[in-house]
């Protein structure tokens, strides 16, 4: 059975095409595990070699087009997952992230051992085959060695060629939403200059999770941690832009990624992009009203879920599949450059990973994608045990310097912890 790509897979292909001049030549993403002690390369090699053949074939795959032009993922000849080990360096993430993935290879691994003997392991995933939450699931299988004997069929089982009505309805809803955002006034925008050939950069800040959860419960109510994180991160971005060289728009628009896996099927939903985008907007003039930001976020998310907007991104661009990937990339960039967003936001709740690997503690775990040239900059939050990781990723030149990223992280931390 063929695995056809969904709308977000086409978006990922378009983003990869938009990144083709960057050192990494794609917009892959890196998951980082920081260990409390030394990890032996042989332990990882053994686990990677134990991956089932079906997984290795998918990792070595590539997109093909059928006679109907609908792209599908053709599994390749199984190859060992590239794994190397390097001495510690301050820019170890950057060096690895800026290396292109080998051809027809959706996963590469690099370990570094720091001077104090502790290991850091980077897992670089192709966005063509994985999203962040799917990559976490594969990582769990690698770390636990518990490979399921049966895997759900990845991707779409059919090209959905006879489903034009739903696809055009989804497109209509999205167009209406994006036009409403575009026509409501000037959007606060960051100049995107000279970043099409730049390498990736990232900065990490970690805060203690429990006080943030308590504050979220108090200010936003139960089960609202995701909305709380979105709202206050956006408010931090608004504060961050106040005194910078951005245009004077009064509306902040942030594309937020949402994991659309149905929780019951999530165990096996590893491959392909199972997420959607939700553009959210806030009135920067309401900067002093913290409660308003939280409520405005909840209301927009509720309105979007009521109309099915996040899922529309998976369907609406299916008709675009007949275009070459570079054209999809150009269209995506063109939309962003018209002011569709200040930066990308993503939040992943507690990862279901083991706390140790071969008896060595996993001290921290975080996501850091390579951002596309537009919107250049992204803010990625994830929880690991008692930590909340705040990561800013950007293309070199997209921010003035590392200090600018650190200032943003400090503001996000301040918003979320209330301190």
């Amino acid at each position, binding site marked *: 059975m063929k695995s056809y790509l969904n709308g977000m897979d086409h978006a990922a292909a378009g983003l990869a095409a938009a990144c083709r001049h960057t050192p990494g030549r794609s917009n892959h993403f890196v998951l980082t595990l920081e260990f409390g002690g030394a990890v032996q390369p042989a332990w990882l090699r053994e686990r990677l070699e134990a991956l089932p053949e079906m997984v290795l074939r998918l990792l070595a795959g590539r997109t093909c087009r059928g006679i109907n032009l609908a792209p599908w993922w053709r599994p390749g000849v199984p190859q060992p997952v590239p794994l190397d080990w390097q001495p510690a360096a301050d820019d170890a993430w950057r060096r690895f992230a800026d290396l292109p993935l080998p051809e027809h290879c959706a996963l590469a691994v690099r370990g570094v051992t720091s001077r104090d003997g502790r290991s850091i392991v980077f897992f670089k995933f192709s966005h063509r085959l994985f999203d962040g939450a799917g990559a976490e699931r594969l990582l769990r299988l690698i770390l636990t060695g518990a490979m399921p004997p049966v895997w759900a069929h990845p991707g779409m089982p059919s090209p959905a060629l006879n489903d034009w009505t739903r696809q055009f309805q989804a497109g209509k809803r999205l167009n209406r939403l994006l036009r409403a955002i575009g026509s409501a006034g000037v959007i606060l925008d960051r100049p995107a200059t000279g970043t099409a050939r730049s390498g990736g950069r990232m900065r990490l800040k970690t805060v203690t999770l429990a006080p943030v959860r308590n504050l979220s*419960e108090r200010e*936003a*109510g*139960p*089960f*609202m*941690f*995701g*909305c709380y994180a979105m709202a206050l991160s956006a408010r931090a971005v608004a504060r961050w832009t106040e005194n910078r060289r951005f245009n004077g728009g009064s509306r902040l628009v942030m594309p937020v990624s*949402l*994991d659309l896996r*149905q*929780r*019951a*099927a999530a165990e096996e939903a590893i491959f392909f992009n199972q997420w959607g985008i939700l553009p959210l907007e806030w009135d920067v003039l309401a900067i002093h009203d913290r409660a308003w930001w939280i*409520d405005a976020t*909840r*209301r927009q*998310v*509720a309105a979007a*879920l*009521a109309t099915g907007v996040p899922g529309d991104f998976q369907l609406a661009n299916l008709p675009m599949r007949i275009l070459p990937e570079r054209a999809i990339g150009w269209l995506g960039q063109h939309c962003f450059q018209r002011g569709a967003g200040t930066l990308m936001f993503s939040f992943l*709740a507690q990862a279901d990973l083991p706390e140790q690997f071969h008896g060595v503690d996993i001290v921290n775990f975080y996501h850091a994608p390579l951002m596309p040239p537009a919107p250049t900059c992204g803010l990625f939050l994830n929880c690991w045990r008692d930590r909340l990781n705040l990561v800013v990723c950007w293309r070199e030149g997209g921010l003035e310097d590392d200090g600018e990223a650190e200032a943003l992280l400090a503001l996000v931390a301040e918003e979320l912890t209330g301190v």
Partner: protein
Amino acid sequence: MDYETILKTLCDEIAVITGLDPAAVVPEAPLGDNRIDSMGFIALLVAIRKYWRLDFVSGGLTAADSASAAALAHRIVLELAR
């Protein structure tokens, strides 16, 4: 509308949101055990607004109200009786 009907509607909605088999949803279990997360909870609030015209999106629910589907159903019954 009676408590049982409301609870059944809520459990069916949880099954739709999470992809669980409706028979596998445990009304008295914490919502998290029924695989409801932050986005799932908002989807549930949207469903409550659709079925009973009660708007909890902007708040109004306590931690006790959202402890389980059964607790949520009790709260809805109380609101509808007002």
